[in-house]
């Protein structure tokens, strides 16, 4: 069957995709809603699913790592894209890959690292799909150098509401609406990515401690440009003079000559090694991660970090994806789930960042592994999150009393400072603030109204925020 540029027609019964009614949540396990989860195995089945998704529409879903309700669609269809997981072609000389949208970054690393290539951008987990990475326009520790994920997308194929498959190139309005568009412009079927060359599968990492927030920001500002990858873990439970103390981990892919001679890693420098602990149990009592436990964890984390170490070799999985080592780590927050709050404020708005950090610290939010990073240049996605400035991300148990109102206050601070919150993490933003945070929102709405007049593509996030 022809799929490019044509309306897909003539379906036989055996191409009807698997479908199952079930409740769906994001990674934060809040706000479950019921949907028909459809698992297309071919592009044709995806087209059938979009055609048949009914009055309440459909939305593509990858590995479910968006924290909030971005990949949920109450009463409608959720297209589980993970069966479309083929890596079609790797240009090992030129450094590009063409793959299905349901391929995970983990899979890409398995395929590409032995060939001497790495994904251009990876977030804190490699269990995200390429489609999700484009839909959320994810960023990684290299944002200040490499920008966000869609900067490295050379082309993508998008199944739109009219049943057509369009080839979308960077620089076009449809590309810019789709980059960070939370899946609301259509279903991404394939993408061609530009890759990052590496000599080894190891990272050379510098670690240092910063005693407080000002120290941290000064260090990041002064020396971030020397590193391809940079992030700071920040202890938001520390108070007083230690408010904002942090551990900076920064580094780059280790060159071959940095590996010790006659070692195992030297013999197979491009082997992708990971390790996994047992999965977190499903029944964890709410409130396990309280101030005491998290405070203790943060204290240990800070103390065990070397004051200053240079050139330590780490696996890719250890450096980028420490939490992937514990499958289902989101369960440790218990049945009540958790909220991840991530915002960015621009350069020159450091005072807003300081105020927010002080407020979180004063409120004693039990948040472990809060992350501070300096963003580089923004990319053109209309709803793309990163803008040059400071981004802070923190996890908080959803059951914390008064949390909703507290985060609303932080939103106001962020919006007043010209900043924004990250839609891929959001599960609770006040809809009225969205237009101020995303100035291209009207363009996005207009494009959707034209491209998808019946509103086929819709998600709980889109309903909640009237995207």
């Amino acid at each position, binding site marked *: 069957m022809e799929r490019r540029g044509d309306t897909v027609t003539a379906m036989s019964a055996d191409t009807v995709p698997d479908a199952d009614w079930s*409740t769906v949540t994001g990674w934060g396990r809040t*706000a479950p809603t*019921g949907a028909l989860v459809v698992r297309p195995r071919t592009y044709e089945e995806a087209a059938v699913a979009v055609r048949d998704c009914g009055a309440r529409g459909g939305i593509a879903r990858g590995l479910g790592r968006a924290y909030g309700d971005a990949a949920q669609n109450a009463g409608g269809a959720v297209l589980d894209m993970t069966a479309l997981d083929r890596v079609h072609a790797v240009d090992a000389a030129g450094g590009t890959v063409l793959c299905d949208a349901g391929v995970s970054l983990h899979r890409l690393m398995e395929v590409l690292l032995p060939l001497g290539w790495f994904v251009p951008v990876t977030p804190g987990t490699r269990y995200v799909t390429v489609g999700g990475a484009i839909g959320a326009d994810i960023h990684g520790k290299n944002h200040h150098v490499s920008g966000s994920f869609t900067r490295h997308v050379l082309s993508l194929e998008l199944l739109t509401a009219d049943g057509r498959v369009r080839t979308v190139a960077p620089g076009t309005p449809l590309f810019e609406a789709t980059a960070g568009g939370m899946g609301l412009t259509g279903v991404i079927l394939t993408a061609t990515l530009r890759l990052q060359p590496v000599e080894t599968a190891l990272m050379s990492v510098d670690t240092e401690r910063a005693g407080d927030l000002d120290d941290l920001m000064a260090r990041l500002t002064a020396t971030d440009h020397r590193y391809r990858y940079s992030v700071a873990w920040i202890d938001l439970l520390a108070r007083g003079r230690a408010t904002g103390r942090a551990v900076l981990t920064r580094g780059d892919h280790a060159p071959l000559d940095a590996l010790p001679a006659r070692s195992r890693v030297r013999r197979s420098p491009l082997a992708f090694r990971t390790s996994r602990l047992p999965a977190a149990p499903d029944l964890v009592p709410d409130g396990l991660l309280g101030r005491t436990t998290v405070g203790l964890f943060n204290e240990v984390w800070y103390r065990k970090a070397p004051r200053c170490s240079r050139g330590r070799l780490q696996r890719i999985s250890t450096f980028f994806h420490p939490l992937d080592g514990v499958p289902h780590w989101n369960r440790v927050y218990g049945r009540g789930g958790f909220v991840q709050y991530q915002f960015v404020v621009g350069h020159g708005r450091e005072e807003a960042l300081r105020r927010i950090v002080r407020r979180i610290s004063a409120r004693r939010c039990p948040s472990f592994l809060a992350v501070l990073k300096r963003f580089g240049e923004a990319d053109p996605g209309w709803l793309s999150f990163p803008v040059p400035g400071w981004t802070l991300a923190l996890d908080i148990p959803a059951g914390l009393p008064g949390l*909703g109102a507290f985060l609303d206050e932080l939103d106001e601070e962020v919006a007043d400072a010209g900043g924004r919150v990250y839609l891929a993490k959001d599960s609770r933003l006040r809809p009225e603030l969205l237009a101020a945070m995303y100035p291209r929102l009207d363009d996005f709405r207009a494009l959707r109204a034209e491209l998808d007049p019946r509103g086929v593509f819709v998600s709980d996030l889109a309903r*909640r925020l009237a995207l």
Partner: protein
Amino acid sequence: MKDAFGLPQSLLVLGGTSEIALATVRRLVARRTRTVWLAGRPSPGLDTAAEQLRGLGAEVRTVAFDALDPESHEAALGKVFAEGDIDLVLLAFGILGDQAHDEREPLNAVRVAQTNYTGAVSAGLVAARSLQAQGHGSLVVLSSVAGERARRANFIYGSSKAGLDAFAQGLGDALHGTGVHVMVVRPGFVRSRMTEGMAEAPLATTPEAVATAIELGLRRRSETVWVPGALRVVMSALRHLPRTVFRRLPV
């Protein structure tokens, strides 16, 4: 859509003049709720309630609804759901009746039963179907501790609430896994118009306290909420008392 804390953006109150319901709506409007439907028999009281909520910034509409006329429920609720998703349905209508009087006038007793139980069965099922079709939403049912174990002093009301409570629990189980959440709220003695002039029972509470408990229950996705919480323990003990002892209790 509800947010991560279970806070609704749109809600429908069945029994739009209920004090508990209005206290709950005020609380929710202060957070995320923008659209409110008040369903009830057309009355100045309903209009006043709507006006007050508008003053808080909500977009409020009223819809004619009579618990005693189950045939009309489909149309009344259908109209509301046709206008858009409803994140929370608050089933709040109910009458207390006058036990002594109603024992002598069986038709009055039947009215209590029809309002509190039959009407709720009809409205609850109609609402549940719409909620299930949209794949999300909460149905909050105002039951009562009186339904936990019927007392001599108000067994007509108590039995109607017992029926309602059992119905709502079953409905909650039926809807489990559909994305729709059913929450049974069992307040004790609530100081309100309904109980005006009555002797206060121990652990008496207020509509505002019930509203607070409902907001908390939504956040936790609770299936049962006691207000105040201590009633859960108290009623658990009372439930197991032998009849001969329970009959003699001064409650």
